[in-house]
């Protein structure tokens, strides 16, 4: 992994009696697009604010590029942030917003003009420099915020829920736009998000947080197929959690289970009754009641156009899966 750009060592942050971030260790490599994923109140935003310098850790150290940043105020850190609200200065125009950070560095006037123009071109906002933030659409504002943070050429760019304020269609386009920019510039991105498909599709690696702690770190594929705990298995995607022995569970993804009318030839098979069919177009999500009273969820791709779903409520079906389809969990 080489020398990490971010090294968080044993960081704890309390607000009153609440431990918002509890003894977190984390390393982020240079050039990564790293995502911090978790529900609201899990501590991911606090961790981001600790990195930016808006909060000071109660314990632990934060190193950026090998330098201890623990006591360094935000304006002296080689880090920039894109705020969830974008935090565009309403009293400055677009160019003024983007130039703000360069002026603080004392960059010469002609250079500021060139770099602002470059940054605006990078986010495809050429020619909008004289607009006020209030005259822009939501998507345009998001890109101004991005340009304003990137123009400083930070070692690290922090993005706090960068897509949350956009509508759904725009959100998907912007997702790939951000990834493209990150690859083009090679800047390390740290994205905070609660949206699990967003984190999965963008990040090269991600960390799942819960109650102030990092529960698991890995690539999207690792987290999906080899979750370490029942929390991660349930938080990322859908999982059937079957207790196989005391202290031992099996996490089984719905699409890893085959559904058939007759007993299948797979290593594991169990009979059940369809109690609910959720038709999603490309696939159908079934809820199957088993003989022991528990239910399992199974996803089937709708290959044939002729029928809505392969099975309907009340059908007796068989569930089948192979031995290596699930992940064994110990906590």
């Amino acid at each position: 992994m080489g020398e990490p750009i971010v090294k968080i060592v044993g960081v704890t942050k309390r607000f009153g009696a609440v431990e918002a971030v509890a003894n977190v260790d984390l390393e982020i490599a240079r050039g990564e697009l790293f995502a911090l994923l978790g529900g609201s109140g899990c501590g991911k935003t606090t961790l981001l604010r600790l990195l930016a310098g808006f909060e000071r850790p109660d314990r632990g150290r934060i190193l950026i590029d090998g330098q201890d940043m623990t006591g360094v105020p935000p304006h002296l850190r080689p880090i920039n942030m894109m705020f969830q609200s974008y935090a565009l200065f309403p009293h400055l125009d677009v160019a003024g917003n983007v130039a703000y950070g360069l002026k603080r560095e004392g960059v010469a006037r002609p250079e500021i003009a060139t770099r602002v123009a470059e940054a605006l071109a990078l986010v495809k906002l050429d020619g909008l420099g004289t607009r006020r933030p209030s005259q822009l659409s939501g998507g345009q504002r998001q890109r101004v915020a991005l340009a304003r943070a990137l123009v400083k050429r930070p070692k690290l760019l922090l993005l706090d829920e960068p897509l949350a304020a956009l509508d759904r269609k725009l959100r998907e386009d912007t997702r790939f736009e951000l990834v493209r920019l990150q690859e083009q510039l090679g800047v390390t991105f740290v994205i905070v998000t609660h949206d699990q498909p967003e984190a999965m599709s963008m990040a090269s690696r991600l960390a799942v947080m819960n109650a102030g702690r990092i529960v698991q770190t890995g690539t999207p594929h690792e987290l999906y197929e080899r979750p370490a705990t029942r929390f991660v298995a349930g938080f990322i995607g859908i999982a059937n959690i079957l207790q196989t022995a005391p202290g031992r569970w099996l996490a089984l993804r719905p699409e890893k289970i085959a559904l058939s009318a007759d007993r299948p030839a797979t290593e594991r098979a169990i009979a059940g009754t369809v109690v609910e069919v959720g038709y999603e177009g490309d696939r159908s999500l079934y809820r199957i009641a088993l003989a022991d009273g528990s239910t399992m969820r199974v996803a089937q791709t709708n290959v044939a156009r002729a029928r809505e779903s392969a099975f309907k409520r009340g059908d007796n079906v068989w569930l089948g899966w192979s031995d290596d389809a699930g992940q064994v969990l110990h906590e």
Partner: protein
Amino acid sequence: MSGRVGVAATVLAFGYAFLYLPIALVIAYSFNESRLVTVWAGFSLKWWKALLQNEAMLDAAWLSLRIALVSATFATLLGLAAGYVLARVPRFRGRTLFAGLVVAPMVMPEVVMGISMLLLFVGSDRLLGGPERGFLTITIAHVTFSLTFVAIVVQARLADFDRSLEEAAMDLGATPWTTFLTVTLPMIAPALASGWLLAFTLSLDDLILTQFVAGAQSQTLPMRVYSSVRLGVDPQINVLATIVVAIAAGALVTSAWLTRKRD
């Protein structure tokens, strides 16, 4: 639905009539030929001429104006500091006392504040030999009670605006002081302007506090008006009232026009 609109319109018409009829009558009678405010004896500008030649009244107006300018400016500076602290510094030793002190002058009965400040100046005169009662003591008194109003306006404005704007500035390399100058101050400038105007008006209008702390020589405009009005109705006061109303209306219309232009 139209019935309800009718009720609302009636309520407002009655309310505004109550607020404005007395003022309208005062204005009308400033153009009255007669000295009596009860009889209309024809149009005349003689009370306007009389007021404009009334040296004592003009001197008082000039003194009031100077006091208002100086005290509003100091009240705005101190009120800005107090409002900023209340909105942005959640913890320091003595914060509860600080918050109490900032709001208290607004609701303190003026006679109580008046007597207490006079006693302070009498005491300092005995111990320190000053300050002499007059311009300085009146200005100090006005600053003390009008800084409260500025502080509340500033605090409200700061509470309304997005904290992440200040964080963004620091994130982009601005020191706390630069952040204040380039982001916070421009954002609260309208609130500061209206706070200054409020402090200016309060100072210009104050009678009770001023009466306590003014010396024998200094007579502000409200003090002159009060001593004249105590003796009964005086058409020159009607003229003065007309001028005051015209200025206030002009200032309000201008400020409304300015805010509309900003949006």
